[in-house]
């Protein structure tokens, strides 16, 4: 089992971008022919540009690994999946795969609206690489999973989008390859269905010991399903390793951890708001609020933490705690608030702040900064924050 199931060496994919005139039209080809023969100008070359969607990518995947592939738009994730699933050919490099691959780059590939649900199961199964016998064997399971029994003989064009997606995913979920490649399919369907999909992927990965490559922007889904991760940045592999580390470094590459505010200088105001990235990665929240004032004030800062849906979780301010902490008066400075450890589930959170002195309010910034927190507590099958709340108190069980 120590042998890699997927081995990628020096993988590169180059696309040639044709700007304006040089399209694939025959007319342009013929025109280009004349152009080059008679004029020998450099215009043709100038409108072409090379673009490396992937460059020198190396990694290996072991059997049974569930690998999350993460990166910003245009980082090369889709290209990588397309090459792995043999839809397009690499320009350089080599991939060795020891097993049958099924890829799910889209839910319901090849579904035909005029055909009934039953017919589409067979068609879609065949397109995804199943044999007729395999589909027959799994037919009942697929139907049960999709929950569309009653409409099996209705053309799928009359299906609701939810039914359509359920049926499509049901077929795909019953593929039995050694390697399953999944692209962002969980972005569709309602919350409950997404959960079902994630559960199924879990089952595929842990229960049946298959290798899964999973691309998603949904970091909490990635954390739930994957053990290791690959981070792509501008076509290059920038990190590979434990999924939590990878998600952290992904979040760090993009998120703004600091906000700078501009306000009139004639009254006290907030100048900066910063979340300490290192502390956050270590599981603590440290918020630095900078202020400036025309005359010395005793800074009183209020902070409210809320979920990405705007639900407040916890807040505190200097006035409420009274004399417990009273800094000296100043015209500018940074107030540091610390929450250690931060007892929250992994997710996206907002910080709102306000500034005052013990008597008067001066400045207020609602949802001033957004940050993503990756908890050290890893719950494989954690329900969403909307259901169980954001707080992750330390429950004791007996």
């Amino acid at each position, binding site marked *: 089992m120590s042998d890699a199931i997927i081995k990628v060496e020096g993988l590169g994919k180059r696309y040639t971008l044709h700007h304006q005139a040089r399209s*694939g039209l*025959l007319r342009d080809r013929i025109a280009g022919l004349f152009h080059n023969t008679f004029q020998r100008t450099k215009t043709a070359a100038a409108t072409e540009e090379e673009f490396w969607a992937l460059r020198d990518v190396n990694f290996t995947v072991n059997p049974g690994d569930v690998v999350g592939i993460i990166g910003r738009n245009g980082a090369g994730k889709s290209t990588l999946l397309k090459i792995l*699933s043999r*839809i397009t050919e690499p320009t350089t490099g080599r991939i060795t795969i020891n097993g049958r691959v099924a890829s799910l780059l889209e839910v319901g590939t090849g579904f035909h609206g005029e055909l009934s649900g039953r017919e589409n199961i067979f068609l879609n199964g065949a397109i995804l690489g199943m044999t007729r016998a395999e589909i027959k064997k799994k037919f009942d399971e697929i139907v049960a999973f999709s929950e569309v029994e009653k409409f099996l003989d209705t053309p799928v064009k009359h299906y609701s989008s939810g039914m359509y997606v359920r049926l499509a995913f049901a077929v795909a979920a019953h593929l039995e390859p050694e390697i399953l490649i999944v692209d962002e399919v969980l972005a569709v369907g309602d919350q409950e269905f997404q959960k079902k999909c994630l559960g199924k992927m879990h089952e595929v990965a842990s229960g049946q010991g298959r290798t899964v490559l999973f691309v998603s922007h949904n970091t909490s889904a990635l954390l739930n399903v994957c053990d290791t991760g690959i981070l792509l940045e501008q076509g290059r592999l920038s990190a590979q390793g434990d999924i939590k580390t990878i998600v952290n470094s992904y979040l760090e590459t993009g998120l703004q951890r600091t906000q700078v505010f501009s306000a009139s200088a004639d009254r006290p105001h907030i100048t900066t708001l910063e979340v300490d990235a290192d502390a956050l990665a270590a599981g603590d929240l440290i918020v630095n609020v900078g202020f400036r004032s025309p005359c010395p004030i005793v800074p009183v800062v209020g902070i409210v933490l809320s979920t990405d849906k705007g639900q407040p979780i916890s807040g505190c301010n200097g006035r409420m705690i009274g004399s417990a902490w009273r800094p000296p008066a100043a015209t500018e400075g940074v107030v540091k608030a610390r929450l250690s450890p931060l007892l929250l589930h992994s997710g996206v959170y907002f910080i709102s702040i306000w500034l005052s002195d013990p008597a008067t309010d001066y400045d207020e910034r609602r949802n001033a900064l957004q940050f993503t927190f990756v908890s050290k507590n890893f719950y494989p099958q954690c329900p969403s924050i909307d259901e169980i709340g954001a707080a992750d108190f330390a429950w004791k069980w007996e």
Partner: protein
Amino acid sequence: MSHLTPPLARLQQPLIIEAGRTERHYWHDLWRYRELLGFLAWRDIKVRYKQAALGAAWAIVQPAVQTLLLTFVFGKLAKMPGGDVPYPLLVLAGLLPWQLFAGAFSGAGSSLVSNAHLISKVYFPRLIVPLSAVVVALIDMLILLAIALPACAFSGITPTWRLLLLPLFTLGTMLVALGAGLWITALTVKYRDFRFIAPFILQIGMFVTPVGYRTDFLPNWRDWLALNPLTSMVEGFRWCLLGGRTEFYAQGLCVSLAITTLLLLGGLWYFRTTERRFADVI
């Protein structure tokens, strides 16, 4: 269940993906995906007549009208000789292979573009798509044949042993269609211009193929017409169906087979070299 048993693929040699390396698995994959070929053809047939009131009857109505039209133009207006065969039957026997070719050719031409969503999302040997167009055309032809045979018998032409050779000419026609279809398919992916060129080719083809007339009464033109690989197939169909009432030109068949081979091999070669880039250009 099956995950407990060592999967077959693991015992096979590993799959290697490299630039220009797809060749090795190709024919093996083509065989593995043979069921998909059937499913795609089945889908196209099923969907085609789904919302048409007359349904599959269209497979007969169209050639019937064409038969009448060609009989009128060639037999009545141009007064071409029909010999001792009723002119409509002569045309019908010619239409069978022509419909097969035309259906496969135009189907193949548009097949990759209309299946673009599959090409860009799933892997399978792309050859399956034009092949399924040929299968669809074959099924249409078989429906027509089921009409043509009783029509012949009704006109007093009894089937002879020659009818047993019909599958060979059917195969020949399919190979011509596949050869031409592969070219048009691959060219259409790259240059959409060929969507406009393909119907044009069919229009011309209809007349340079002896669908509406007999070649054995045109000795001056016979050798020229033989350069069209379909000519021999049309003659073959007539010879089989009409019980030898028309003459079969054996030399023409040799020329036709040679040209068909070139067309097919060339088509395969061109298709295979461009296939790798289909997903990028489609």
